[in-house]
């Protein structure tokens, strides 16, 4: 059997022929590094106001992150991504220096004390647990994440991801995603970078070029 997948909007037109006897179309939020083309696996969230954290203090805040929507075909065998689109603005930035730094998807967000209202087709809510292990006050203005192993959960109203950021000095920290949904009714999104497809599975990202 042949099916036509067609997406037409002001973002562009995508048309594909799907040849299969059975199978499903799965649509869910995916790691936001695929558009306009996938050149990196890092996401940098820039806080509109930086936060200052006391030594040995733990803080739980919420920030927003961009959403990309992936369309998959599934059936017998593997699951295959056939289309990605997004309503969120796309921008990239450099974290670090031009020689050794990394290109990251850029996103600006306010810091919230509780999950704020968002358009779930455009933005998701990220719970950020910041732990200052350093024995001095630390100012944090950004969070850089390796989206390999990003865990995204979603329901009809919210897209959610949870991150832990461990500060080790005034200029460095480690970030990692946690496998915890915001509520029990949330489904885990299909990942486009499952561990077996990733070259090196780094569970943590070391932010060494400043906070």
């Amino acid at each position, binding site marked *: 059997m042949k099916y036509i997948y067609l997406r037409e909007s002001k973002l562009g037109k995508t048309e594909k022929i799907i040849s299969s006897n059975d199978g499903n179309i799965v649509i869910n939020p995916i790691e936001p590094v695929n*558009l306009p083309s996938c050149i990196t696996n890092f996401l940098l969230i820039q806080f509109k106001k930086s936060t200052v954290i006391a030594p040995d203090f733990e803080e739980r805040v919420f920030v927003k992150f961009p959403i990309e929507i992936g369309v998959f075909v599934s059936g017998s065998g593997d699951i295959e991504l056939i289309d990605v689109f997004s309503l969120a603005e*796309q921008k990239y930035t450099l974290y670090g220096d*031009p020689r050794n730094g990394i290109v990251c998807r850029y996103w600006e967000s306010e810091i919230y004390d509780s999950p704020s209202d968002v358009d779930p087709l455009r933005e998701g809510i990220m719970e950020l647990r910041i732990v200052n292990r350093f024995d001095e006050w630390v100012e944090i203005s950004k969070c850089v994440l390796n989206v390999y192993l990003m865990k995204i959960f979603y329901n009809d109203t919210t897209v959610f991801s949870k991150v832990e950021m461990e500060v080790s000095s005034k200029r460095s920290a480690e970030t990692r995603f946690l496998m915890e949904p915001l509520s029990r009714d949330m489904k885990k999104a299909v990942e486009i970078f499952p561990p077996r497809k990733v070259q090196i599975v780094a569970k943590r990202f070391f932010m060494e070029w400043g906070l």
Partner: protein
Amino acid sequence: MIDVLGSPVYGDITVGEVIFSVVVMALSVLLAKSVTIYLRRIIGDRMEKNYRELILKLIYYLIILVGFITILPVLGLNPSGLLVAGGITGIVIGFASQSVVSNLISGIFILWEKPIKIGDQVQVGGISGFVEDINVMSTIIRTYDGLFVRIPNQTLFTGNITNYTGNVVRRFEYRIGIRYSDDAERAVEVIRKVIDEEPFALKNPAPAVFVDELGDNAVMVSVKIWAPVQVWYDVKMRLLQKIRAELERNGIEIPFPQRVVWFANELELKDIQRKGESISP
């Protein structure tokens, strides 16, 4: 048939032993090729192409070397004796084939120092293109026109190498002229907006847009943008057209070269024109 196989070729070495050696070497090459093809398929994209190819080459030559060492005793050659003879022979060959050895040593240093890797965009000795392969003796460049260029490693090692993709980001620049009658501040604002809307024009390092020169025919605006190396050329091509269109949409034009000429004897010219008008019927 048995007599033929048992007949000596040289010394005690028989035809059978020579055929056996040839078969072992052929099998070694076949095995080396099969193993590298299999490993290339297994490794796939899990490893950087540069390292993958280096490891596969090492495995390939190692298997062939094992096959070669295996047949040496069959052919009546003592490997330990070869080592002694090899030292002397090596010196002789080294002098005789200096450039070959030089290329070999340079190749090893290039693989070690890694100024370039497979897939990089480089310029070496006036040749620009993609690095297709780095061999022990030479490096293969595919030019932007699609030409195959083999550069001896000695030339590569001793020459200047510009690696366009050596860093993760790179900067490009436009110089855009606008009319003196246009609002330069507005033009800078329009250009900044276009850059902001381009995803791969990096937020940091921030783009720079400023009036750079008051030229003969135009106010020159300098635009400097950083972009990821993978896409910088696409961004450069795309953005200039967008900036031009957006400037025009805002009534800001790129002027043609022009020169204002002042006549010192303007009055006389007007008199001549007047006289011409009175003479003409």
